[in-house]
């Protein structure tokens, strides 16, 4: 995945894929803004196996921006409208082969499912959900850092993640970060045994 080329191509193609309203000329300007700001939103991904569900691949996606960036863009991550986007394809954002999850409060019991385009909606890799939003206490006041836990990733698949933040002056799109989803094998012994001894 070419990070550099990705940043250059994202605006135009995303215009076709992501935006659902507005005209493209205006959006192009918005995306120029996005391109300019992209490097200021940093995304880190930590892949791990669920500690509560066997064979379940999770990831914690953290994104942050500097206080100056947040101030200049008038963004508070705790309140901003954001979405987490992912693709499992090489240059997938450019090809429109992505999935999007609105960054909204969620719990394991009330997950927020990812939404993919019709072309990729059945893809196993896109059948994941956001199950938790996290914000470090220190960053809560400044609104410069957020984290989301997603559950049900397809193990062994390379996910490329990015964050899209709506601001008054346009959209901020982070640089993409690629990470391999954790593989979480667990050997299923058998149905739980009773405490009776069995003959060998």
């Amino acid at each position, binding site marked *: *995945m*070419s*990070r*550099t*080329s990705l940043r250059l191509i994202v605006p135009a193609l995303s215009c076709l894929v992501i935006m659902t309203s507005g005209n493209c000329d205006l959006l192009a300007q918005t995306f120029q803004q996005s391109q300019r700001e992209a490097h200021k939103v940093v995304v880190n991904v930590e*892949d*791990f*196996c*669920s*500690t509560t569900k*066997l*064979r379940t*691949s999770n990831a914690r996606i953290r994104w942050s921006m500097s206080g100056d960036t947040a101030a200049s863009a008038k963004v508070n991550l705790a309140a901003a409208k954001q979405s987490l986007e992912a693709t*499992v*394809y*090489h240059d997938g954002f450019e*090809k429109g*082969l992505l999935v999007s999850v609105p960054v909204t409060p969620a719990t394991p019991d009330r997950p927020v499912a990812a939404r993919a385009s019709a072309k990729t909606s059945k*893809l*196993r*890799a896109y059948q994941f959900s956001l199950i938790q939003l996290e914000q470090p206490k220190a960053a809560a006041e400044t609104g410069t850092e957020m984290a989301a836990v997603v559950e049900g990733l*397809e*193990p*062994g*698949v*390379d996910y490329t993640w990015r964050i899209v933040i709506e601001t008054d002056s346009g959209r901020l799109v982070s640089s993409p970060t*690629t990470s*391999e*989803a*954790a*593989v*979480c*094998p*667990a*050997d*299923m*012994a*058998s*149905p*739980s*045994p009773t*405490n*009776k*001894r*069995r*003959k*060998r």
Partner: protein
Amino acid sequence: MTRCRMALFTLVCCLTMQTAWAQLSVTFKDISPDRSNSPDADAASGGRVNKLGVDVSTPGRVYAASEFGGIYRSTDNGVTWAHLDGHVPQVTWSVKVDPTNSNRIYATSFYDGRTNSRSGINVSTDGGNTWTHPASATPPVNFCATSTRQTEPAAFGIAIDPANSNHVFIGTNCGLAISLDAGVTWSFVDPTPNDPATDVRDVVVHHGSIIDVCGADGHLRSTNGGATWTTSTTQPLQSGVCSIVASPDEAYVLFAVVGTSIFETDDGVNWAGTYTNPAPQGRIPFVATNKRSGSNYDLWFGDVRLFRGSCTTPSPAVSGGAQRCNASSAWAGPFTRSAGAHDDSGDIAFTPGSATNACPTIFSSDGGVFRNTLTASPACHTPAWTQPTVTPHGLRQYAFDGVHRPAAGPEDIYLANQDDGTFGTTNGGAAAVSWNTENCCDGFGAKADLTRALTAVCCFSPGRSTLLFVSAPGLTAGGSPPQVNTYPPGNVRSFEQLESLVSFAANSYAIATTTGIFVTTNIGAATIAWTQLGATSSPVSPCGLQFAASGGTTTFFIKSGGCNGELAGALFRYQGTTSGGTWQQVTTPSGGGGFGVYAVDQNDPQRIIASHLGAPAGPEVVLTSNGGTTWSTLSALNTLMTGSGAFKYQNQSGPNVSSGGASIRFNGYPQPSLVKFDPSDQDILVAGAEDAGVFISTNGGTQWQLVTDPISPGTSGVPHIPRPYFAHFDHDPAGGDINLFLGTRGRGAWRLTFKKVAMPQIQVPAPPEFNPSCLGDKETGSLKVCNTSAGDLVVTSITSSNPEFTVVPPSGGFPVTISHDFCFPFTVLFTPTSAGAQTTTLTITSNDPSSPTLTVQATATVGVGSLGLDPDVLFPPTVIQGVGNCHSTRPLVVSNQGTCPLTIANIALGGPNASDFSLSGLPALPITVEPGHQVGSGDLTTGFAPSDVARERTAQATVTFVSDPVTGTTSTQTAALCGEAVRTGARVLVTQAGVPMPEVHEIELKLIHGGWFGFRKEVDEVKKVPLQTVTATSGTACASFRFHHEYGGVSHPKQLVPGVYQLKVEAIVGGKEVEKKTWFQVETCGFDGTIVVDF
């Protein structure tokens, strides 16, 4: 047993050759179970095996690449397997055999921790006995997406072109490696050249050398040997861990699994076809095709379980159309646990040489390898697997324990293995260890006492996934053991390398759960009572539970975070078994950070050894004897942890396992994997490294000895035991032997036997010193070698890298034994053969276990004689012989300005006017001149007696001296001689305020008769006399000068007769004519060249 004998034999061989290295004599026995005695195929003994390689030409020969245990080979079609020690990288992925050459094998592996890595691609040309990592198999600098991918290489799938077996293609973490000469040389290709090269996970070459790859960049195809690549823009293959295979009939039909999803392309580009994975998990799913008859072929798919799909090539075969195979809901199978093979597939191999209906013969999975007992088609296509007689010994322990029993043979050993369940034995010290397999699957805990064993096994459903079973010692009772009757709150911790279960006394156990740390002092109670230790201060994410008992008090230790041992976490202690105490954090060493792996002396809670991670200074192993108040760095062990630089102490992308997971991640790791005190002898400790070996100390941690061979185990016969994580000591063997049992991550279980010996410590207080010397001399220096620890230090040799330095063998010869606290002064003889500062590296070979070879730098300064010779000798103007017997002399200074004697062989005159010059005071030559002295002691002079008037008469004095006293080689230096030949006379220069005047109005010379005041006779009068310049010839000793008029010189050779002369000079100064007079006397041989008249 064979291995043990072989190892012992080789070690004895090595003892003979290299006594010092084997100061601590160790024998090795791989005690891993050869097979499982459980009827459950998921309770296997082979450990994880990834890919298989079948030798087409040699019947029965097959290779297996294990996850963490290296390469194995079978020569009997999978019945018995043996580890190939010559393949040093141990984290392997795939292995393939050249179909036209049984001896040529290709293997791929992940980073091996070495500074100069041997991982990635390895090639054998002798059937797997020895391996090379070709230099060109390392990607070029700046080619990979990150520099780490170049310095820490990894490689994945292998493909050999069926059309040309010299053409080999290997997916790597830095693009596709291609060899066109059967693995001798390699080049790297990035299928997506517009961005840096990343992972190519698998490759298939088929149908006229078409190359298809999958990986981080999805699927790409090349039809021109990798020069250019194509991919789909609309329906590409997703990126990730993958397996790819082609239809046997159609070049454009491919099958792939990425992650857990199965895809098919029927046009070679677009991956529109999919199959539902019948049992997804995703460790290393694979696809394989097997040609049947006519237009039919099978699609074999393995993930959790193995299935066979039925596929048909359309007639006529055209690109596109319907998917070629039946829906996965109709696939035959599963063919794993229910068919005699462990679940979690790795690879499948077919009978070589059969164009159609080849039987599946070998299957690999997380339980090792399995053989198909059905060998005839068509029955064999519904395989009935059986485990080998001797499986690969690739078990990985999550937990390990030993319980002491008297006598040598009896010893309870327990293995809680990843994937393959729990094994126990009661005769761990016996020649042949008998293992009992109890439960399948993931064993996370095993701790025992003399009457029972407590094991933690995963994964069950519904309810608790990890259960605690209470079993008979050695797991010998058979049958399904009962669970504990009462569980402590929380869930048993799982998928962590640091244990969370201890047996701290008879019937007494402690366990860390997801809720806290709990103890019971009666595990056999009808209702077990669990007491939580320090609930209010309980550390988060507790793991790595250990204990120490001293003075009737039990102290527990727990690590918080970093539960695989490779990441820093905090360490806490808790005193007692009641609930009211408080967990106290153990202070970290200076520099901050935290602890990785650690051990506490079970007899002394103040004594802790640990890897110290996360500090700015980098990883280290430290030890405290006061509970962490102060820590000391174990320098000798730290040196061994890197193999003195052969291994990185901390790497960036080495294969590791994330906490909570069970598959490889490329996150890097520090070397320390094991530290442990011997509870029966406080002097003995063991430590282990991921890659750098196993180390033993017999003096409390000061000195350590590497006892395994991580460098060349294939030739030394001493095994490489990577990733030891667990240890248990037994002091019962006869003759003072100590058994050290080791549990590993992927290399099975081992028994090391050794005797405790005192460990000497070599010390060289200072390098030998030499007085300044001269070529041809000999100087001696004293190399003092001391022994600062217990045990005799045996120095077997001392060698010098510079032949000018030699170590004089002591009178008794080598070896030299030096007792504790004594020193021995070895004599180093310096015989210089060249001048200047001379340096040597003295290599001392001894039985110091930590520094078996110690190097000392020594320097000596060699002086030489140095000729001092004035380069130019200028004579004053000298009257020619035709006038009289006139001459002038000058000293010729030939000195020794060096620090050693100088031999002057000859001094001779030569040059165009050599006959005008002469030498006097010359001693008999050759002569040796001491430093600071001169030839002739100052009496050596040159004389000048010219015969014809001339401005310049030149010659040179050539001094020949011995420049190399050793060889007698001579060199020469010359001094230039110059003199002006004149008649008797004088030379006049007129100046104004010291500056020569351009012209002088008149110069008049008169001879005075009758003394200074007598009659004057005009001799000469000249007017308007210009300033003249005489320029010396370059390269001579001659000097330039200026004058207005001369008498007896070249411009006016008329000589002045001896007498007194009056010189009057008239000049125009300030527009007025002024005059000055001066007088001079001309002697018989006189010529005054410096008459200056200044206005």
